């Protein structure tokens, strides 16, 4: 969209509200038709404007929000089946397929990678921290990292 086309603030507000609705309610069953109704748009017009602003259709955006939140839950060590349903997927197979398509590895592989990385951070934190800052802050291999375990 060019900047000359802007003054339609109300359009922005409605599309942004729809995006925020997805951001907040991604874990629930979301019906795109319902969102476009709420935004007072025809479905076609809504999808076109949404894609114009965010580069994705509302459905693609919903999937990416669910995957992003799954990643955050995996970083907190949550099991795959819990994460799948917690972020709004209705079946493990569709979750696994979409996760792999977006992230490049299966959910269980990603979880295992995160668990390993977390263990390594606790074991060797200096491998994950900029050396010059660690030195400046007095974070050395002789520091007492054990208190964070």
């Amino acid at each position, binding site marked *: *969209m060019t*900047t000359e086309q*802007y003054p339609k*603030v109300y359009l*922005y*507000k409605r*599309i*942004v*509200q729809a*995006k*925020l609705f997805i951001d907040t309610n991604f874990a629930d069953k979301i019906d795109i038709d319902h969102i476009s109704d709420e935004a007072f748009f025809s479905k076609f017009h809504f999808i076109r404007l949404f894609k*114009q*602003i*965010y*580069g994705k259709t509302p459905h693609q955006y919903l999937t990416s929000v669910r995957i*992003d939140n799954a990643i*955050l839950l995996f*970083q907190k060590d949550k099991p795959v089946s819990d994460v799948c349903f917690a972020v709004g997927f209705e079946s493990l197979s569709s979750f696994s397929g979409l996760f792999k398509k977006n992230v490049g590895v299966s959910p269980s592989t990603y979880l295992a990678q995160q668990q390993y990385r977390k263990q390594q*951070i*606790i074991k060797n*934190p200096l491998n*994950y*921290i*900029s050396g010059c*800052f660690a030195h*400046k*802050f*007095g*974070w050395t291999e002789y*520091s*007492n*990292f054990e*208190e*964070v375990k």
Partner: protein
Amino acid sequence: MIRKLTFATVYVLNQASAYDFYVNKLGFKVHTDAPIGKDNRWLTVTPPDQPEIEISLLLVTEGEMFTKEAVKTVTELIQKGTFGHGGFECNDIYATYEELKSKGVEFAKPPKEEFYGVAAVFKDDSGNWFSLTQKK
């Protein structure tokens, strides 16, 4: 020969609150969150489309880096909005502005047409400011 930027530092006053701001409000990704000591973390985040550039959210804390007096001075300067740390780019500044405003992000300058595009200035939860631009 310098080849690339690996990370940049933003000093913050509270890392838990900074996490919420950069991750939940700006939508940045967590790169590393490593606890260091009792009340400190090596916390780095990346802009959504730039996973290779980390922004380190460092706590202003007394120690090797800052004296007690320096902590007080730096804290006051950050809170006053003295430090600008760089600029971010977005595809649609008016939509981004509406979204961030609705999430409670403070804007020092709303979007304005400039010769290079449309630009705004927002502050993080500590008081650091950044420009936000939609290029022409």
